[in-house]
């Protein structure tokens, strides 16, 4: 893996969008830092997969999509859900397993859902969301809607049959799917060169006859620009598009991962490319952000996180009598 220099250069947006992108990333970061802490305290259980280090992808991409678009995400989806508009409160309550959670405590960290925001999960089978995204796009096309279905998945999914079958079907039927591959170079603990015969993922994707784009996933500006263009291409009915966001997970795969497979120097080199500090430095250098403004933003986000935790703490448990609810409509399970 060659590690590029940190993202730099001017941010070609007005102050408002620039600051919004930074706030988006900061909200994910602070939410997840607190989640990790709560995991340590035993408040959050099960699997918890942190997105820390990859925030620029969700931030830049979500702002390139529209309310009518569909989002399909993975088990590392807190950031996508949050930036799509799912309230931090209901995400935190879901991680607590409370009734007030977006999935009423049925899903947990890996299964955040929100129909109102067309957020279709929270899919914890690697590659499992891709066929679903193809179908959502098919439904949109058959019903004459101009929506895009953005499907997020990791590099590990590229080794799954579901990836290849879905890419083929989407390209064959020219469906409006935006395949968003978050390449963090590891499928859990296995480095990409240890599981891919072809590590150039765009080359793989291009074989299906669709447009492919590669972008520095640590740079919110680059992500936003590329995703905007890709979404336009898809929306204009030109068929699906594959975007590879090269990024890096700063934390372990999950809270159970002792991280025996990565070189500490590699992690440090990527941390130098951290999406938050490099972006805020650029904004400061351009005079779009002062240290005081950043601190005020951080306090505001901390308040939102504190409020979300309080909301989850004060939430209620689903009564056990509702256990069998929402399995099937109508006939009670027998």
């Amino acid at each position, binding site marked *: 893996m060659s590690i590029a220099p940190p993202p730099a250069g001017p941010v070609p947006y007005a102050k408002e969008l620039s600051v919004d992108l930074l706030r988006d990333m900061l909200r994910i970061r602070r939410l997840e830092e607190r989640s990790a802490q709560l995991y340590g305290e035993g408040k959050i259980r099960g699997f918890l997969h942190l997105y820390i280090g990859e925030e620029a992808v969700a931030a830049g991409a979500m702002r390139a999509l529209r309310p009518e678009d569909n989002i399909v995400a993975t088990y590392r989806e807190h950031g996508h859900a949050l930036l799509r508009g799912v309230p931090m409160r209901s995400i935190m309550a879901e991680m607590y397993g409370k009734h007030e959670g977006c999935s009423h405590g049925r*899903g947990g960290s890996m299964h955040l859902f929100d129909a109102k925001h067309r957020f279709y999960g929270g899919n914890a089978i690697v590659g499992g969301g891709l066929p679903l995204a193809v179908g959502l796009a098919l439904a949109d096309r*058959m019903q004459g809607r101009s929506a895009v279905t953005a499907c997020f998945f990791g590099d590990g999914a590229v080794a799954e049959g579901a990836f290849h079958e879905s890419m083929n079907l989407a390209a064959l039927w020219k469906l409006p799917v935006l395949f968003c591959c978050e390449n963090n170079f590891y499928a859990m603990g296995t480095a990409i060169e240890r599981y891919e015969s072809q590590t150039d993922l765009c080359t793989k994707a291009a074989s299906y006859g669709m447009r492919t784009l590669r972008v520095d996933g640590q740079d919110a500006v680059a992500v936003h620009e590329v995703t905007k263009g890709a979404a336009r291409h898809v929306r204009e009915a030109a068929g699906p598009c594959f975007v590879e966001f090269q990024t890096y997970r700063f934390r372990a795969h999950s809270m159970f991962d002792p991280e025996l497979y990565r070189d500490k120097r590699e992690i440090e080199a990527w941390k130098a490319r951290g999406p938050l500090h490099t972006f805020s430095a650029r904004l400061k250098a351009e005079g779009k952000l002062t240290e005081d403004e950043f601190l005020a933003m951080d306090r505001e986000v901390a308040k939102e996180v504190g409020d979300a935790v309080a909301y989850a703490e004060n939430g209620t448990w689903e009564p056990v009598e509702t256990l069998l609810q929402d399995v099937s409509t109508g006939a009670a399970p027998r």
Partner: protein
Amino acid sequence: MSVTSYREALRQAHREALASDPRVFLMGEDVGRYGGTYAVTKGLLEEFGPERVRDAPLSELAFVGAGVGAALGGMRPIVEVMTVNFSLLALDQIVNNAALYRHMSGGQFSVPLVIRMATGAGRQVAAQHSHSFENWYASIPGLTVLAPATPADARDMLAAALAHPDPVVIFEHVQLYNLEGDLPDARNPDIHSAAVRREGRDVCLISYGGSMPKTLQAAEQLAREGIEAEVVDLRVLRPLDDETILASVRKCRRALVVDETWRSGSLAAEVMARIAEQAFYDLDAPLARVCSEEVPIPYAKHLEDAALPQPEKIVAAVNSMLGRAAG
């Protein structure tokens, strides 16, 4: 009332569904230009066009998953998986997405998807093309599992499945496609109940799908031997209709289940367990079953026949249950 084949009844059901609801579309391998592997969908491409009768690549995982997604997106897809054997390639999408989405999302999403597949053995197509896995699917919360055994059910269950807001899997036994039967004008939208296909009093024979004709044949033979068997067609494999099953068992006081799935962990095992749990003291004899032998289904005709439930095996099992020498 008219006499129609199971295949034609299915085709009629598809035609009606496509004509009456613009959200309905059909997707699967060779459903269009080829006319369907079992010719069920013949003529539908010409009638409804390639947008609504979609030939899919040999990608069971992707097109079944796309059916899940399309259902989430407001459509009413009918996905034909050529056979249950190939459905194993799509199992992740059926189990992990279709069946779980409603619950896992806290009731926010439903998946109104209909998956049809051919099942069963008896055509000398050997081990990999002769499976019956209805029992697997029937064990999964979130799925409704249907097994039409008559042309009328073949027609009516499709419409009922499409009207259902959650995923429905329909098993069509390959030996039934040419079966002819009465097709009443009246529709039966019931996908909750088992049905008594033959009244009797001495023994209750419980079966479904492709084993139904064999079971009814066995009942006729038993009648010639002076034994009046009642025959219950499960129709709905999940959720099972305990009430109808237990009523018949209590009446006959003896029960035998006929099921083409392998004996261990068979659907028969589940039905027997429910009877034992709820009607043990109503029984005059131990429960019995006729299932497939625990062997990959062989190619040679005589071996295949020996591996599967047959009317003679059913008759013998009933005689044994009644303590009679085989007739």
